[in-house]
């Protein structure tokens, strides 16, 4: 017996590793500088999480994720050590971060038609932060939706429509809205298949239970449907991508903008016999673009501002290329060509990466800097259809969400990767299905081509959570409760 015990003891001693647990977040850092701890190597994430919670002596356990050398621990420590050829004699530096909690469905807002665009106005949203003067009170979050029926709607968090944009006859869009954004708490920009960008004045009355969206400015310049819209309020600039292969650069100020090109105004249409009342009763000022950036050879699917420098713009196109623009001189700076049509774009400034969703069902991380040697730094795989929308994680510089035509929104962490034969490949952390499928009781069923559940737009706000809009005529809000509440304060 004693021999057996001895061997067991020696084995246990052999299977221990010295770990140094650290955290970059102040609120969950270990109380005093805890020295290296000896832990059995058989531990996995859950056991380590329990250990850290014990050390923190927190009354409510917080789930943690553990990072060793910048990658998430997905196996036991033992397996990690063997896989990476690290001796168990060394002290492991383990960083722990709050685990992403599976985002829970909060609400769904039903629309009359497919919802193509969504945006959030909250204290943490860019539109509110740019408007330096106005303080935004909590609980006054607004959600903007643009729909294929041509209407913009503003919702409050209790799924009530506060305001709807006017109909086509009263200065509204004459075709489906493809993109919509809050410019400021009282200004909205929208882009549509009717080739116009419109700016709206948004006002609220009655303590926020009703509001009004009034047309402010119509911007003409594109010759085909506008697919994407990016807003930079401090400089009053808009960036649009259109199917006519051009990137539009616009001013939101009436005074700044040049006159609208005559030939593109609806009144110039030769189809006079048509009964369509294109000339609405409301007369809205019409303006043209500051610049039309033309270099793409295919429809431009996305155009964004650089997150740090509003004079730099990026655009992604169906012609497989990603182009960098100097917006001051309206000139093309750089072109990166990939192997697939690019359908969406997001900038991750902390990593100098551009995430581009492709028609080939993945997200390519592209380094736009001239010094970058490879076009694709990383590939995120998991979607089963075209990735048409991307948004940054407001909490972490590593986070990303993507909306795809396969009917899912996926959360990605750039640290959760593995190296494949095709390079670094990331896997999604969570996949959020459409609630409408669950409501129909077909949560597990897979729709061919994402029929009826395609996601067209995603938005991730720190306060509201993940907002996604799709073919199921709904705006769906998901939120990872634990993450948001604890990081807020």
């Amino acid at each position: 017996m004693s021999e057996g015990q001895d061997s067991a003891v020696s084995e246990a001693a052999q299977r221990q590793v010295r770990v140094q647990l650290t955290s970059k977040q102040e609120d969950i850092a270990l109380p005093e500088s805890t020295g290296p701890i000896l832990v059995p190597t058989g531990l996995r994430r859950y056991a380590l999480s329990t250990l850290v919670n014990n050390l923190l002596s927190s009354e409510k356990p917080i789930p943690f994720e553990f990072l060793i050398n910048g990658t998430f621990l997905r196996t036991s420590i033992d397996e990690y050590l063997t896989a990476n050829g690290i001796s168990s004699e060394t002290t492991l530096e383990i960083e722990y971060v709050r685990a992403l909690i599976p985002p829970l469905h909060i609400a769904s807002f039903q629309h009359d038609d497919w919802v193509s665009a969504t945006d959030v106005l909250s204290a943490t949203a860019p539109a509110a932060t740019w408007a330096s003067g106005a303080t935004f009170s909590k609980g006054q979050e607004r959600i903007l939706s643009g729909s294929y029926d041509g209407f913009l709607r503003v919702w409050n968090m209790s799924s009530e429509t506060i305001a709807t944009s006017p109909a086509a006859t009263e200065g509204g869009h004459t075709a489906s809205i493809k993109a919509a954004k809050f410019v400021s708490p009282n200004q909205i920009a929208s882009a549509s298949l009717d080739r116009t960008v419109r700016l709206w004045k948004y006002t609220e009355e009655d303590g926020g239970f009703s509001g009004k969206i009034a047309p402010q400015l119509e911007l003409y310049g594109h010759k085909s449907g506008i697919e994407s819209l990016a807003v930079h309020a401090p400089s009053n600039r808009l960036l649009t991508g259109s199917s006519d292969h051009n990137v539009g650069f616009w001013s939101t100020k009436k005074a700044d903008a040049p006159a609208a090109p005559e030939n593109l105004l609806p009144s110039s249409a030769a189809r006079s016999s048509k009964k369509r009342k294109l000339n609405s009763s409301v007369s809205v000022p019409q303006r043209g673009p500051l610049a039309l950036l033309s270099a793409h050879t295919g429809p431009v699917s996305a155009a964004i501002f650089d997150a740090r420098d509003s004079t730099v713009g990026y655009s992604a196109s169906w012609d497989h290329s990603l182009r960098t623009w100097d917006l001051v001189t309206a000139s093309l700076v750089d072109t990166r060509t990939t192997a697939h049509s690019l359908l969406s774009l997001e900038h991750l400034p902390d990593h100098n990466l551009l995430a581009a969703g492709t028609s080939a069902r993945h997200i390519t991380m592209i380094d736009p800097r001239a010094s970058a040697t490879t076009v694709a730094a990383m590939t995120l795989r998991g979607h089963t259809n075209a990735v048409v929308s991307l948004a940054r994680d407001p909490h972490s510089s590593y986070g990303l969400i993507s909306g795809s035509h396969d009917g899912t929104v996926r959360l990605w962490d750039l640290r959760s990767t593995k190296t494949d034969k095709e390079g670094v490949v990331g896997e999604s952390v969570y996949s959020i299905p459409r609630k409408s499928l669950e409501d129909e009781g077909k949560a597990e069923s897979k729709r061919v081509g994402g029929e009826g559940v395609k996601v067209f737009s995603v938005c991730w706000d720190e306060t509201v959570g993940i907002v996604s809009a799709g073919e199921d005529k709904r705006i769906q809000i998901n939120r990872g409760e634990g993450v948001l509440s604890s990081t807020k304060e």
Partner: protein
Amino acid sequence: MDARKASKKRKAVTRDVEEEAGVFSGDELSGQDLDGALSDNANDLSDSEDDESEIELIDDVSSDEGEEEEEELDSDEIPSDVGEEEVKKPAVKEWQADEPNVRIVKDANGNDRYLYDEINPDDNSDYSDVEENGNTIGDIPLSFYDQYPHIGYDINGKKIMRPAKGEALDALLDSIEIPKGWTGLTDPATGKPLELSQEELELLKKVQMNEIPGEGYDQYEPLVEYFTSQQEIMPLSAAPEPKRRFVPSKHEQKRVMKLVKAIREGRILPYKAPEDREEKDENEINFDLWADEQERPDHIMHVPAPKLPPPGYEESYHPPPEYIPDNKERKAWEQADPEDREKEFLPNDFQSLRKVPGYENFVKEKFERCLDLYLAPRVRRSKLNIDPESLLPKLPSPEELKPFPTTCATVFRGHKGRVRSLNVDPTGIWLATGGDDGTVRVWEILTGRQLWSAKLSDEDAVNVVRWRPGKDAVILAAACGDDIFLSVPPIADPEIEKASLETLDAGWGYAASNPTPSASDETKKSAPPTWIRPSSALADLGVCAVIPLRYIPKSISWHRRGDYFVSVCSGASTPASVAIAIHTVSKHLTQFPFRRRLKGGGPPQTAHFHPSKPILFVANQRSVRGYDLSRQLLVKILQPGARWISSFDIHPTSSSASGGDNIIIGSYDRRLLWHDLDLSQRPYKTLRYHRKAIRAVKFHPGGRYPLFADASDDGSLQIFHGSVTGDMLSNASIVPLKVLKGHKITGELGVLDIDWHPREAWCVSAGADGTCRLWM
């Protein structure tokens, strides 16, 4: 006496003295275990040793019994010496002659005692016949010597000692304690007394008796049952012996008498050895066929017989065992094809030459030889040893040929009933479809959102929709029922829309300036139709012009410039003269270029303009013909061998500059045929992968991706890689890439039409299930 002499002879000279002991005959000695064994061990010294040991025994006895034993001892010593060396015999004789034969010895009392040597009489001595050891006491009873140890005197005056009685010997032997296995010898190896075990003694005895088994003696030979152990219960016949067995045969006697008579009369001659054969041979005339044969030079007509190698071991009738095949080899040989056998016989072992059977193949070989002489050729099977894998063409893996469509990305749902046709617009943003419900719809290609819909007819189905090529105008041609509708969907920007409308409206004035044909012409069926304006409801939807054709057009194909399009009415009832019509948009003019039906193969099916040359290709059911429009000549006839062509497409880079024309043809008899016009009018490749009819085939336009696809009634699309090189020498390489399944088969129909995205490797398909699908 004989035996005695024999023993004497054998022991040669040494034995002469020894025999005085009398009792111990040589035979007896050899019979004794102990001594016999010893003598053999001591090699050549055998006899003398025997004697010594014998004498020692006696010596012991005599020492016990009195003074005269020393005499005996001495007398014995001499012969023992003599016995040691056989050559000494004559020496002894000499010594006898020189010296007095008296020795003076001291007796027990110290008195002199004369000892006389034995008298050795010559062979011619008188006493030779006297018994040497005979007792000389004469005729006195032996009882007088009862109290003496001797029983008389021999011829030399020596006492004849009383032979030891049985009891005395036994008593003596008992008194001597001989250890078991005692030999009295020393082992030369150890220096210790040599002792033998019982087994060794037993062995020695056997050696002495010549009972040792020789080499090859099997101790455990199986018992041969000479007489069977099984006894028959019943005799074979219980009949008593017939009498004739005991009576001399009269018949035999007669035959014998005949023979005797014949011999007497000289009719039967005794056998004579055939020695006179040679004489006869001299009389015979033998012809030496090769006597005057001369060596001829090597010539095709004179091929000397090949020199055969000398026979080897395996050809022997009794080959060494290593040449005899084992069962496995034998079986392999028997199973092999006679042509494949390494040698045509199997080595066989016959114990003797007389057991060798006749040559089994004798008849067969003679027969074959006869066939040879008759010059009767026998069919020789030529075997092809080709690895079947190597016959397959080396195709690149589909992975290397990416991108190509693999999954369904969008489903376009909205049509009621079948979707008969679809087309992606030149900018690649919109998809136009037409279906059984009489509507034409335009969709956003990526999202599957319907942007525009026009109901052209309530009863008739829309058979074809085709966008006008070119980006300067957005015009959609749709064939619904008997009419072709040209429309401008309200999806483009005002500028292009205006251009489109102007393009379509320009012809009205031209048509008006050319007055309509006379009434008599109009009644004729072949009269070209006039273009008319659509109804106001349709005009509001965007339809600008209608061409009433009176027959149902099933195919529309635009010229690349966008000014002409050709329509084909493939119905069997359509008159041949109006089946194919070429419409000019700018003039609102419809012409019927063909007056007569195309030869061979029923009504025309479909027609396409060549992408770069002024050639119109028209397909009827069985052939595709190319007509030069400028010279108005038939320039090409393709005969794909299909029974009913459904569709065809011309490779977009086809031109004389870049390697020639390539055409793919789909047929209702499930074949997809690739024609290289430079090679032949027959297909270069026939691909038969579908289970049902192929409805549509399409190359990827623009030549950006070397892809083509077909759509079949089995509900699947197949994507192929078909790269055409500019090089005239190399042929097109065709690789099947992917089968796309998803369309449901509705009413025996699967996928009805197919089209490619103009820039991307995406394709769209129209299904009989009312959906269209985008594959990417």
